[in-house]
């Protein structure tokens, strides 16, 4: 037993911060993939209203499938790899992203859309230059939930052979009877989640200088009420993370 507080058992063949990097990669790539998949699906749901309820139903059912079940199926195709961990995480993120994007895009006031159409913006320009930027706060709110939940979920990857980033330490802590490793895993994951969430808040502030700030009445009457874009109206990422941890 050599080394300090952050020493990691040699069976993991990694340093603590190496595990942090691994953990982040396994958590963030699925979120990015989920966002890319959710954007076109959400746009379809906005265009075809009838599609939205069944799509929501499907994503909810997928979210209800335990990750272990996913692993059992996926291992046949992708083996005991990071990919096997990341695929379920990407699928889970859809349950957050699709409603966030749909609500965000729908919250764009009708007169804004009419004005865009009347000025000769075609459907693509209207989507990219008007709907998506105005939906950005809602999308980033979804991104926060999805990211934090993904960071907490990566740990289950330890079940398929040390593919769980910081979660691998939980297993090692048990077999080597070292509580220090368990603390390193749990606190490390939590700190990671809080830091990444803070970064996303900064991202939102940077991307949306046009949002009314300050406490109390957040929006002027003239700017119009836009339900669904308030980050406050969404479940707190930390709460979701706890729920996910329970799974």
């Amino acid at each position: 037993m050599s080394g300090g507080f952050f020493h990691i058992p040699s069976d993991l063949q990694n340093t603590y911060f190496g595990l942090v990097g691994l953990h982040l990669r396994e958590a963030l790539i699925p979120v990015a993939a989920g966002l890319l998949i959710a954007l076109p699906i959400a746009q379809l749901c906005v265009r075809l209203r009838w599609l939205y309820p069944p799509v929501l139903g499907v994503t909810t059912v997928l979210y209800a499938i335990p990750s272990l079940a996913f692993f059992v199926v996926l291992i046949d195709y992708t083996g005991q790899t990071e990919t096997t961990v990341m695929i379920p995480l990407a699928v889970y993120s859809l349950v957050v992203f699709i409603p966030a994007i749909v609500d965000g895009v729908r919250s764009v006031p009708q007169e804004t859309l009419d004005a865009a159409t009347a000025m000769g913006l075609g459907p693509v320009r209207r989507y990219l230059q008007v709907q998506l930027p105005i939906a950005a706060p809602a999308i980033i709110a979804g991104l926060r939930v999805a990211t934090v939940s993904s960071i907490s979920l990566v740990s289950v990857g330890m079940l398929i052979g040390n593919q769980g980033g910081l979660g691998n330490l939980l297993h090692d802590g048990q077999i080597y009877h070292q509580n220090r490793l368990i603390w390193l895993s749990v606190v490390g994951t939590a700190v990671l989640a809080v830091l990444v969430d803070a970064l996303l808040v900064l991202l939102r502030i940077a991307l949306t200088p046009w949002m009314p700030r300050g406490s109390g009445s957040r929006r002027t009457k003239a700017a119009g009420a836009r339900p669904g874009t308030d980050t406050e109206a969404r479940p707190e990422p930390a709460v979701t993370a706890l729920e996910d941890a329970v799974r």
Partner: protein
Amino acid sequence: MIRIDSVTKRYPDGTVAVDRLSLEIPDRSITVLVGPSGCGKTTTLRMINRMIEPSEGTILLDGADITKQPVNTLRRSMGYVIQNAGLFQHRTIIDNIATVPRLLGWSKDKARARARELMERVGLDGALAKRYPYQLSGGQQQRVGVARALAADPPVLLMDEPFSAVDPIVRKGLQDELLRLQAELGKTIVFVTHDIDEAIKIGTMVAVMRTGGRLAQYAPPAELLSDPADAFVEDFLGTDRGIRRLSFFPSTGLELTTTAIVAVDATAEQIAARATPDVPYLLVTGLDGRPLGWSAPGDLTAGAVDPAELLPFGRPFVHGEESLRAALDGAVLSPTGWAVAVDREGRAAGVVSQQTIAEAIRTAHAEGRDAAKVAG
């Protein structure tokens, strides 16, 4: 000229929004579509820039069918102003205004320079350029909406209840501003409103539409007030259309009594000379010629006129510039029953009795009837 040729809009559920509507919208004037909700006025407006496609009929712009050119090219050649402005909340004021020039491929600098020019034109402080829409009042946002519509200098301006969502004082300001802008720019404006007073104030031509999308009457405002086509139009115009019609008669022909005016420093002889039996009151003016108030000749003491003791003179009207309505209003408001006419500088030009105004109104009506006969 925009020519709407027996256009019908029928929805799949059978609702008819516009029913065989034909209108000729003259160039460089304001044509107002007015009517109760559900009369198809907004639908008509939106068919002009093809946000809604007609079920039957054609719309011609300068003789060419509007469906013959790419829809976005058509739209970029028509400014569009909407209720609540419909600004892009995620873009600064200057970038909102520069939207269409940018779409037309102008450089960013050129588009922004144009946007600044327009901000000034519509009466917006240049300091607002970098602000976002939520930081502006409703009236300011609407001005941005107008500037944005004018940005690429389109020949046609479509306005859909643009001033309905602002308070009456701001609305009056915006209406005056629009008339001023129109005098400078001479656009072909199609303006939708449900407010008949707004229609009469700003319209060169007014199309009154009724529920079911049918045209009830298409006429200049004065004609609408004098000869409503039917009971529906008459009812829609409201109760005091006789009074409102006076707005269209100039006060130029009013014969003023100029002898009933004395200056505040008048001598006893001057007062005695001005007091005639047919003038029960004298108008006292200050040394600058502005009216101060009325007084009975007997109550005036030369050299000791106290302006505070004079009777109020109501609201004066600018002779030759304001209408008979303003003159009549002045006479009704004045406790003496005489209206005070002033020149542009506010100096008293004369006084006029209710009887004289009533005669002028009768004359104006008679002339209007003769003109109608000649035209008919």
